[in-house]
């Protein structure tokens, strides 16, 4: 009996990804929402099917088989709301990232001011900033014009000028955009998002509207120091959703069935990280990372600030963008077996051609995990450059997407995360085993109870509590003694040497007291922590002390490097 809840509901969530469509059925078990069944199928919004319906049908058919409940009628319609027999569902949600990003040119005044804010605006969603044009641009007017004409973007973000500030430069820049709009054939003209000096908003909107559709938002840089991205981001997301509705076949037909309109995946993800950010230590903040097939997301939030970056790279078709920017040696250095760089490069380029393919051998999955490490590093570097996070101490770090699904062994998942993120301090690492976070964020807007209860369920598992120690001591020197006192009175003590990583067993759900006793030659961050025992949560990999230093430096020599990487895996008990 569904008791104890005001409105017990069965909920179906569908995530339409670039490669896979995933379905999750939630319902109430013993007064609490639980994940009942999940399934996935290749996304069918691509040629030749061009409709999401086929994949959703396949997913629902499999979920029906798993849970023995009928969700679709013989006619193929979803049973909505649920019947007294328990068949069907009461709520239906869709989240998606299965579309191409908006191609954007930013036009503004100063590179370090308004155009920098425009760049951050694009980074926050599925927008690819191709070009920025400002008043310090050394190109001539005609060259800037030609650039706009050649790129033919989907959108021009027009910004610049503090509110009430100088307007002449902005009007000159507007003339450039207006000329480009006139020269481009109808049907190929970009839309305009005006988010600059508000004094000129109405005037410039009138000018641009003669040629194209204009959206406006409050100034993203209302003062020299102040930044206000949120309202413009809402407009930008609305444009992305327009594109999403145009590109994804069958979405318009399916939308009316949804409890809330389909949402962008990154919005749902951010909503959950923001929620978690308000629950945990405000001095640390919550970090969420999701590497997808085409896009990836990094989100940070504490009780004061939050930030979301969406990256145009991933482990599927998004690999091409990543490989073009990086050096293959940075990826192959993480491999625990000798392999020529060309083989690594060929394997990854093939993966970009065949995003549905699965790593079948140990070597193939190791190459994927190597590139995942580099992607996490790139995401962290970008997040740090935003200068919003007070430190690299997080509580907790939540891993979602391919960082979870492309790793079969929890120890390798842990090493992958630590190598990529390289956090400081004490961080619990949580695995979003079914990549539910974005969907929960979408559902939370209407059914927050489900999202909260799922976070506390076994759909999320504590991978480990990691104590990260930095020291300038020589590699191999004794650094500290770590003792873990268990609730049953037993304890486990181990010596930790500089450059090593060790695990102290502590089962998921259990707690213990960790005591760190430094040797005289060692230094440690968060000195206060060592005076008193630290209460730690258990995890699949227990409690981990990472004394490899920050940043992690790998030997240049391939033989020594492989030996070291293998040693770290061995110390943690990798399968």
């Amino acid at each position, binding site marked *: 009996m569904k008791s104890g809840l005001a409105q017990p509901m069965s909920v179906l969530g569908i995530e339409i990804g670039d490669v896979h469509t995933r379905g999750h059925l939630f319902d109430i078990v013993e007064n609490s929402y639980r994940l009942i069944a999940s399934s996935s199928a290749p996304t069918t919004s691509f040629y030749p099917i061009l409709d999401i319906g086929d994949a959703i049908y396949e997913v629902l058919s499999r979920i029906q088989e798993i849970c023995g409940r009928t969700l679709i009628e013989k006619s193929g319609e979803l049973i909505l709301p649920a019947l007294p027999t328990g068949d069907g569902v009461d709520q239906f949600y869709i989240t998606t990232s299965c579309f191409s990003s908006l191609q954007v040119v930013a036009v503004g005044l100063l590179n370090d001011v308004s155009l920098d804010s425009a760049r951050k605006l694009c980074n926050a969603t599925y927008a690819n900033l191709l070009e920025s044009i400002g008043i310090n641009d050394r190109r001539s007017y005609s060259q800037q014009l030609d650039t706009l004409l050649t790129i033919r973007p989907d959108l021009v973000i027009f910004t610049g000028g503090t509110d009430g500030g100088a307007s002449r430069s902005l009007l000159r820049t507007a003339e450039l955009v207006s000329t480009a709009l006139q020269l481009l054939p109808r049907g190929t003209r970009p839309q305009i998002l005006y988010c600059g000096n508000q004094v000129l908003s109405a005037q410039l909107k009138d000018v641009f509207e003669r040629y194209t559709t204009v959206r406006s938002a409050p100034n993203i840089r209302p003062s020299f120091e102040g930044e206000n991205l949120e309202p413009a981001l809402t407009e930008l997301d609305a444009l992305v959703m327009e594109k999403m509705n145009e590109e994804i076949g069958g979405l318009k037909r399916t939308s009316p069935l949804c409890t809330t309109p389909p949402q962008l995946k990154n919005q749902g993800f951010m909503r959950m990280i923001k929620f978690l950010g308000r629950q945990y230590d405000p001095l640390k903040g919550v970090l969420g990372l999701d590497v997808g097939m085409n896009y990836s997301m990094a989100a940070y939030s504490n009780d004061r600030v939050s930030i979301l970056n969406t990256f145009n790279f991933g482990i599927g078709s998004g690999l091409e963008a990543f490989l073009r920017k990086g050096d293959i040696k940075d990826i192959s250095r993480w491999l625990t077996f000798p392999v020529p760089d*060309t083989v690594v490069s060929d394997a990854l380029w093939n993966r970009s051609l065949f995003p549905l393919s699965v790593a079948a051998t140990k070597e193939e999955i190791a190459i994927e995990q190597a590139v995942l490490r580099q992607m996490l590093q790139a995401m962290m570097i970008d997040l740090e450059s935003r200068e919003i996070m007070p430190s690299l101490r997080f509580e907790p770090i939540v891993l979602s997407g391919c960082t979870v699904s492309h790793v079969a062994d929890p120890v390798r998942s842990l090493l992958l995360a630590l190598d990529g993120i390289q956090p400081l301090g004490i961080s619990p690492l949580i695995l979003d085993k079914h990549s539910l976070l974005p969907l929960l964020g979408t559902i939370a807007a209407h059914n927050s109870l489900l999202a909260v209860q799922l976070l506390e369920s076994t759909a999320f598992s504590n991978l480990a509590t990691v104590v990260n120690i930095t020291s300038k001591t020589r590699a191999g020197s004794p650094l500290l003694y770590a003792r873990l006192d268990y609730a049953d009175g037993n304890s486990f003590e181990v010596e930790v040497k500089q450059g090593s990583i060790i695990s102290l067993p502590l089962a998921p759900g259990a707690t213990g007291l960790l005591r760190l006793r430094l040797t005289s030659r060692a230094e440690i961050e968060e000195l206060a922590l060592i005076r008193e025992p630290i209460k730690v949560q258990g995890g699949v990999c227990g409690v981990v002390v990472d004394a490899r230093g920050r940043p992690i430096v790998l030997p240049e020599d391939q033989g020594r490097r492989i030996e070291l990487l293998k040693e770290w895996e061995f110390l943690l008990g990798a399968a």
Partner: protein
Amino acid sequence: MNAQLTQINPLTLIHRNRLLPVPGSVNVREGQRVAPEDIVAEASIPARHYLVDVVRALSAKTLSAAEKMITRKPGEVLQKNDIIAETGGLFSRVIRTPGEGRVVSVNKGRVLIEAESTRIKMQAGLAGKVTQVIPERGATIQCYGALIQGVWGNALLGCGPLTTDYESLSGELKTSAIGVTSRGAVLAGGTCSEAFLAAAAQEKIGGLILGSISSSLISTALELPYALIILSGFGDHGMDELSRSLLATYIGRDVSINAVKWNRLTGDRPEVYIPLEGEAHAYEEQAMYTSGQTVRLQTGAYAGRIGRIESLLPGVTLLPSGLRAAAARVVFGENLREIIPLSNLDVIFSNDRFIGAPDEGGVLWH
């Protein structure tokens, strides 16, 4: 589970849309026969402009004074050294055009001139008949012939007589294979080196078909002046035996290459067309994985190899990587059997013209 399909099809009905990215003019009519290099549609996109600031150049004191000096109107076509503006009077100073162009706008004492426009020319890409004209955008072209779908292309079109031999198709193309007969010809081989790519460019070949290529040559390939299509992926595994056999059959015949980038959303895919006499049905574009299908492996140690699904395994299978996936037992040649995830298989569709398990080098269709 829906299968991923690739055509290595000896004879099928092919129809392809050839559309401009922007509105333009269509040069063909329904029923017209076209050659691969024929321009089906074309459009003009403004590409290079220059701005003449008359106020500054002629030191006009006011905007209205400058505008009086301007002698041109929007739309006027200019030749090199034509006068754009002049001060007038006994010692008149003038501004002349640096080159040919067209006046786009005259505004606030400034003249914007379009010096150059890019002409987008949409070639037919394959020899066939125009079956439909799409106003302002292009046409649909239809033909019967052999079709080989690839996985990567350098975004160019190419055509010419197929010039190769079975040895080259089986291995690496050597620069020594390039000669005077290569000019304008489409070459084909298992794989090749950077030196070969460069030598082929010098000889102005019509196009290049490769089984595979090292990913380290991608940047070079994107700069080539000729169309390059990769049939099965990156690496040194060369060309699969089905593509090899099909191409070997048509040495000397005219082939076309559309080395477009693979777009999963639209279905546009790099392809090789060999127009043939005879008629056939259109090929299937959807199928489920079933036993008996001929498949090509996408990745891993067997990348590019052709096999046959012996049986589909029930449920999901634990792979050596530790991941679980729906899989099949695939047989290569006579005795080699491997468990392969279905997601790593391309079903090779051939209008049922391939018979039995493929053998090295054999002709595989009726």
